[in-house]
């Protein structure tokens, strides 16, 4: 039996559900649109890239799994073509609009999902002014009646622009040129940022730039790159920061000065492409997060009992499907480009890899079955 078949037999025990799709191109974007659809987009340079709005098969979007859902395929609801590579894509909530970013980062592209057809049309652009290849601006959306687009390549260029009038609503106004790695809107007025250097902070847009910050990711951080996500559920710290060497820090937003814990995840090597580093909190599970961007796996951790600094931790679950089901013969094995949690199926994760595969998996909690 070939390794793929071996692994599939093994997968009967590991997953409740497992689906593998083959996209027309690899994606770094898995953006939810409503709770039944996702957006994916190609990131190849010098090529037309597809942006697709896919509808999940019913069995993956029903809240309670009752009845027969023979359909297992994604349906392409809308599609469009981008002349640039798409590295970041955000859906503007309650609208049919999307904002994309990617190199060359001289502007953000605004798109619209057509109502009367299946086409995604480019509708406008948002100027970024500074152009610093290979850097490109990170994007996040302030949802409201007049949605604001938060974007920036460096801390100094951070601003919020009104999507419709294109007026600048907020600028950081600092001369700090730390390069941004992630941006996340937390509520109507606040957002979180993380720099490649590991510096992270929470910003209130109603005030002048005075973020509550964590400046130092600890000793020996030179050369490492970082990303972060806020939003952990449960009583513990709710900000996670992931380094390209597998170091994972948990921070309490009320006191960012010192990380609550800092652990070493068992990654085989530092991330070969730190831009693909992802750390995400599970929306439906307490103290649970997933990381990817090191190799062909996605690791899931339960952070409940983490404390102190420097500990080695073991993942609760590791998804290896992208390695075993890879038919491309790529050497090395494909790299996971991004992953996202299902909004309400607690253990369901979607992950994409550089071989254009897209997996949807509902892992079985090994602790629950003990």
């Amino acid at each position, binding site marked *: 039996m070939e390794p793929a*078949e071996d692994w599939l037999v093994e997968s009967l025990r590991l997953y409740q559900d*497992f*689906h*593998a799709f083959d996209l027309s191109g690899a994606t770094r974007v898995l953006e939810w649109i409503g709770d039944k659809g996702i957006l994916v987009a190609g990131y190849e340079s010098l090529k037309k890239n597809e942006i697709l709005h896919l509808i999940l098969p019913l069995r993956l979007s029903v809240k309670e799994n009752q009845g027969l859902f023979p359909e297992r*395929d994604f349906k*392409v609801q809308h599609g469009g*073509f981008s002349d640039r590579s798409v590295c970041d894509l955000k859906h503007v909530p309650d609208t049919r609009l999307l904002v994309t970013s990617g190199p060359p980062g001289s502007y953000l592209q605004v798109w619209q999902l057509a109502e009367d057809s299946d086409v995604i049309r480019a509708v406008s652009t948002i100027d970024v002014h500074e152009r610093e290849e290979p850097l490109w601006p990170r994007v996040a959306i302030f949802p409201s009646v007049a949605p604001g687009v938060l974007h920036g390549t460096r801390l100094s260029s951070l601003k919020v622009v009104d999507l419709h009038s294109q007026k600048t609503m907020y600028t950081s106004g600092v001369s700090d040129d730390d390069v941004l790695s992630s941006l996340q809107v937390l509520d109507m007025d606040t957002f979180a940022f993380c720099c490649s250097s590991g510096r992270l902070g929470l910003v209130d847009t109603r005030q002048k730039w005075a973020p509550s910050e964590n400046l130092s990711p600890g000793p020996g951080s030179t050369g490492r790159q970082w990303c972060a996500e806020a939003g952990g559920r449960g009583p513990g710290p709710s900000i996670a920061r992931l380094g390209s060497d597998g170091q994972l820090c948990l921070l309490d937003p009320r006191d960012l000065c010192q990380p609550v814990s800092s652990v070493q995840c068992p990654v085989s090597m530092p991330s070969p492409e730190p831009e693909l580093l992802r750390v995400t909190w599970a929306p439906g599970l307490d103290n649970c997060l997933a990381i990817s961007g090191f190799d062909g796996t996605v690791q899931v951790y339960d952070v409940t009992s983490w404390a102190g600094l420097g500990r080695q931790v073991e993942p609760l679950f590791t998804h290896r499907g992208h390695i075993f*089901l890879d*038919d491309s013969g790529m050497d090395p094995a494909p790299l996971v480009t991004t992953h996202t949690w299902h909004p309400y199926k607690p253990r369901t994760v979607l992950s994409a890899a550089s071989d254009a595969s897209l997996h949807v998996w509902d892992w079985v909690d090994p602790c629950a079955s003990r």
Partner: protein
Amino acid sequence: MPEIRVTPLGAGQDVGRSCILVSIAGKNVMLDCGMHMGFSDDRRFPDFSYITRSGRLTDFLDCVIISHFHLDHCGALPYFSEMVGYDGPIYMTQPTQAICPILLEDYRKIAVDKKGEANFFTSQMIKDCMKKVVAVHLHQTVQVDDELEIKAYYAGHVLGAAMFQIKVGSESVVYTVSGNLGHRKGCLVEEREEAPPHHHILCQGDYNMTPDRHLGAAWIDKCRPSLLITESTYATTIRDSKRCRERDFLKKVHETVERGGKVLIPVFALGRAQELCILLETFWERMDLKAPIYFSTGLTEKANHYYKLFIPWTNQKIRKTFVQRNMFEFKHIKAFDRAFADSPGPMVVFATPGMLHAGQSLQIFRKWAGNEKNMVIMPGYCVQGTVGHKILSGQRKLEMEGRQVVSPHLSLPALWIPLGWVEALGTTTCADGPHTAMLQLEVKMQVEYMSFSAHADAKGIMQLVGQAEPENVLLVHGEAKKMEFLKQKIEQEFRVNCYMPANGETVTLPTSPSIPVGISLGLLKREMAQGLLPDAKKPRLLHGTLIMKDSNFRLVSSEQALKELGLAEHQLRFTCRVHLHDTRKEQEMAMRVYNHLKSVLKDHCVQHLPDGSVTVESILVQAAAHSEDPGTKVLLVSWTYQDEELGSYLTSLLKKGLPQAS
């Protein structure tokens, strides 16, 4: 201008009635003749009055082609040929020819005997219809008449499924249905020698770009048809991988067996059943499972019979297995005996028929339905009115006949009343048979539907278009508005036109047929003598005389043409007067013209003749005084039509005046 016209008559989708009318260079071909399984009135068959309102179908249609045995592609065939009336040839592959009548008869039984539908074809009509069928082999060019030829290509999908190429002269169409194209990366279908460019249509029913456990992947050569017709049903989907479908099947079977339940898998004798058996056998071996697996009697012989017949249609692995051993000599899978159904403990049974409308699968279902530990897995589509369709629609209480029904067309085996049945309120009496007790069966067992049907998705369709390199693509059975993106994608990637007609709407495609012209060796040698080798990327001007004789076109040199046709050459000269303001004498003027032309036309032979005139090739220039104005000289320029280009150039040159003498 020659054209190709295409009109889809069907309704598409899973239960649709595929039927497409194609007119190509004056020939009319009907592609598929499917039925709509969701209707039991007139709408179940295509509206054939579209084809011709007045005349006989046989006079109008040159042939009918059936892509594969699924009823949505062949279900209306006996109605069309025997009831509407068509006596022309019907082409299909040998497996389709063998399986199609079995399915038609099965369906007829359900529709007429069970549901009591009227205006339906009879068993005899199916037989009569099949007599009109001409079987075709893969890659065999079949000459329908002097001009119309067809050729079948492997489509995967189901046993015997084919894509068809239809060719009339230099025009052709390819028709494909959803099949398996070698879709996974690294598994692209083999490349064979390229066919010369032709105008033809590639017609495609269902096909599959991924090889599966018993069939190979669809394949077509670079036949560059004028048009490729394909279904759009799955064109906007991204398919879950086959492996995951299989995994899900194994998981369900395994879980049921582990908890001590029984699994019933109703199957049609062919195709997927073998595939699922191979899958389960491998899994049982690996997991060292002990629960017995059975397949119903009759299935073995039938399946083996057909598989032996059509072994070239299966994939290489199966072919190899067949050489080594009987396909159904499994280690873990044994023949089923009716008594086994009552045995305690877990088991898995494959039983026919696939839609639970009669026979062994229905008997076993009745026995096992009352136990929630058991499971039935329906691996395919079920026709309305069958038990399979009812349970798939979520029905949990079924009214069923409790005793044998005797009917001239349908003879169900004796049925018995198993435990777990509830006696219905009363009994009914059939006018033509014995008493039939109506019983209510409560379905407590788990019902699962797993589709293993192999269809090409968006990526597969793109691959097929890339392989065949058509000039135009036509997608049938879809909503144009929902496929605008796909159209853009096809048009951008392959730089072809993509059409999406609605049912009943005709698309007319102008075609530009290639006309082969033979060039004489002499003419080619003359071209070669100029030292320029032909370059496919750079068009070049070539002068010659085109002779059209006996439907042949030849390009020869003018001398040869004159000689062949016995004609004398006529001289044709153009003349022009150029007025130049110059007071010098005519001889001096001619000398200046000579010097000027000699310096400008370095590659040509410029001569100054003793009579004072100047020649360049056939061009003659003479200088004369103006009769009224002594300050003006007239240059008389004349040339033959062969040197028209040079003559015009020289005239325009002289009109600009002569350079001042240094």
